């Protein structure tokens, strides 16, 4: 079968031109749609991790720097792209002769060296000043040790009598700090590199095993400031969240007093007391509850170093004073109570947060699901048949195989850890 070339008619040529125009229109419409979507994404109302809304002195410094550097970089970027586009179009190959080649123009080269150098100098001055400001530690008023591990953050508050901390406090998921106070986080990690970032309060800082990195935080007003681990750290990196809770100084003192309160065992004969026994048998291998004792009055000391790869599991003393769990991934309070706290005014926030998780607010659904099968809720390396690489140790919480009855008891017990 042979093909005979058909002569190009005027009609065919018109069709071709029309087809090209339609293709261009489609491409332009697609690009406009993508650009519009990106632009609209920046208009989200509920964006607690927005980097452009500083809520503290340190974040404000970064924001100020951004507002200087972004326009400069933007203008330079647009100019360069526009110039490149102009050159591509104007001097595209149309079959013309190649122009005479010369070896540069000293005047242009000098200008093109000096102008960027000046721009970089201006940007550099502001950048270095900000970096140095953010690296200060001499005005620290409070220190908190922050330790990352797969996939949660532990906070321990060293003894600091001037802050009312007469004995160490240990908590996880939510970092509590007093407003208007220069807090210095001493970050490290127990397993892999993580990165701590509360955008509203400061930039990000890596938490590296074997090293202590410092990060300043300061919040202007009471409230919750959300954050996210920003260094890929394994399976549940995306679920390694954190929340900084800023309280007025009076409320922070109340929080400290509550965290230092001695443990109270549930009353005999209650479901919570039965839950305490289940907890001792099933959970205390990894989770510490300070003050918890066995039937013989001997203190229960957890051994996460024997069971967990990182060597630590969240300390659950005063669990119900936080309103998240599992690396701040799940709420301990139901949606209504959560909204109530998140949307509270600065004045009312402290009282609402310090109320903790009441019986009415407890999100039993989340907690029960977690106790029933934690790996189904959050991806973790906790399949007992696949722990050869870690010497039999878990990374994350395994499925404990609790019965529904045991889950009821443990929920009742955990509810008492105010």
């Amino acid at each position: 079968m042979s093909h005979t070339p058909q002569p190009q008619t005027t009609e065919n040529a018109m069709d071709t031109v029309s087809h090209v125009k339609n293709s261009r229109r489609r491409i332009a419409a697609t690009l406009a749609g993508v650009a519009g979507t990106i632009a609209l994404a920046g208009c989200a109302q509920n964006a607690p991790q927005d980097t452009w809304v500083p809520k503290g002195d340190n974040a404000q410094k970064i924001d100020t720097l951004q507002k200087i550097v972004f326009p400069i970089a933007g203008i330079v970027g647009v100019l360069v792209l526009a110039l490149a586009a102009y050159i591509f179009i104007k001097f595209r190959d149309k079959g013309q002769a190649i122009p005479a080649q010369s070896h540069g123009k000293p005047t242009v080269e000098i200008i093109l060296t000096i102008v960027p150098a000046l721009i970089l100098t201006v940007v550099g001055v502001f950048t270095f000043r900000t970096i140095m400001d953010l690296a200060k530690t001499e005005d620290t008023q409070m220190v908190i040790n922050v330790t990352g591990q797969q996939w949660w953050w532990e906070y321990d508050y060293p003894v600091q009598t001037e802050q009312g901390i007469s004995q160490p406090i240990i908590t996880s998921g939510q970092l509590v700090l007093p407003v208007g106070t220069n807090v210095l986080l001493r970050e490290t990690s127990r397993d892999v590199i993580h990165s701590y970032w509360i955008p509203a309060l400061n930039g990000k800082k890596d938490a590296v095993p074997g090293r202590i990195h410092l990060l300043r935080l300061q919040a202007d007003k009471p409230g919750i400031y959300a954050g996210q681990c920003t260094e890929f750290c394994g399976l549940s990196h995306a679920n390694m969240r954190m929340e900084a809770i800023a309280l007025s100084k009076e409320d922070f003192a109340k929080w400290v007093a509550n965290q230092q309160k001695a443990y109270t065992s549930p009353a005999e004969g209650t479901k919570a007391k039965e839950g305490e026994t289940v907890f001792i048998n099933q959970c205390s291998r990894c989770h510490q509850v300070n003050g918890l004792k066995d039937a013989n009055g001997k203190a229960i000391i957890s051994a996460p170093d024997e069971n967990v790869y990182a060597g630590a599991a969240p300390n659950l003393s005063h669990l119900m004073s936080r309103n998240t769990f599992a690396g701040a991934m799940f709420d301990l309070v139901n949606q209504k109570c959560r909204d109530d706290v998140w949307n509270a005014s600065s004045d009312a926030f402290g009282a609402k947060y310090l109320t903790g998780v009441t019986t009415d607010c407890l999100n039993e659904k989340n907690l029960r699901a977690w106790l029933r099968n934690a790996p189904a809720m959050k991806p973790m390396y906790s399949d007992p048949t696949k722990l050869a690489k870690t010497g039999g140790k878990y990374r994350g919480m395994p499925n404990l195989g609790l019965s529904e009855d045991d889950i009821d008891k443990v929920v009742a017990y955990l509810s008492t850890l105010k």
Partner: protein
Amino acid sequence: MFTPGSKYFLGLTGLALVSAVLYTFLVNPSDLGAYALFGLFLNAAVVAGFSFFTRDGDADTVEEAIAANTEASAPSFWPIVFALGGALVLLGLATNEVVFVIGLGVFAGGAIEWAIQNWADRASADSSFNSFVRHRAVGALDYPGLAAVALGVIAYLFSRIMLTVSKEQAPIIFIIAAAIVLTVGVLIGSKPEMRGKTSLIVVAGVLVLAIAGVSSGISGERHELAVVSEENPYAVANRECGAEASAHYDHIANNKVPLKSAVLATIFVKEGKISAQMVGLKKDVDTITIPRSNATSILFRNLDKEEHRLVANLGEVKVGSTDVMEKVGTCTQLTGKDQEQVLTVSIPKPSFANGPYSLTVPGIDGEIKVVVP
């Protein structure tokens, strides 16, 4: 049509795709291997596309491409290297990891060199031009690559020697070796006519280094390093951590190399007093808080005239199944005036359970309390 380079990468693309699909269905779709194979597929496809599009970069004209098909390839030993690499990979899979990694390197090197030589041999009908093309393509990689391997081997052999000889002999050997390297370098640079003789010296030097390095590797590390690699100093019960010289700790360097910026606290001894500063706090503290179950470094700085050591007292443990309690702790070496050492501890139990914990300096009154929450 298809150039040799694009054929090679298209083949790799197909192989990677088939492997990825088989791996996904037969092994585990969420396993890292599946991602790696799909990644290889995508990368190989991109490179194949570039290779095809650019006609391997150097086969500039159709005439050259046609000529390429008329010119027989020169004899090459790279297929042998390639096969040897494959054999080593298989052998390594059956024996040990080192052989596998070496095999992988030989395999990859052989494959790359073979492919490039084959490609260059077909670049034109002119063998001298082909040779030029080949050198241009791989010369920039061959020499730095071989130099890096040679330097790595020399550094490794030298490190074996340094780990075997005593601390006193090590600096002398280092000085002599540096002097020889400098002298040979100067000779090569200043007297080009002696290049032949100096090359002989270099070869002889490398041979001596190889013999000494292998002998050192076989005889093993010096005593204290061998001990530290076999024994966890922290697990040793609190012994010989007094003010006097210690046969144990004074010969065992801390096998971690933390930087000063990684310390949690600094302990000072000055004018017979012990004090502590924690990172981030302005004033001295009498208690330091150390996170549980995490290697934490503490810097000890002796500003006294006498030698001192820092001792971490980390509670007590039962001896075996008996009720006898034994103190647990560790310490630095004796540290002279204006010197400093790092003590790294990892404490698995909270201080309220196994404490109290403290940091002390034998011969100095006072202590720094250690709290582990």
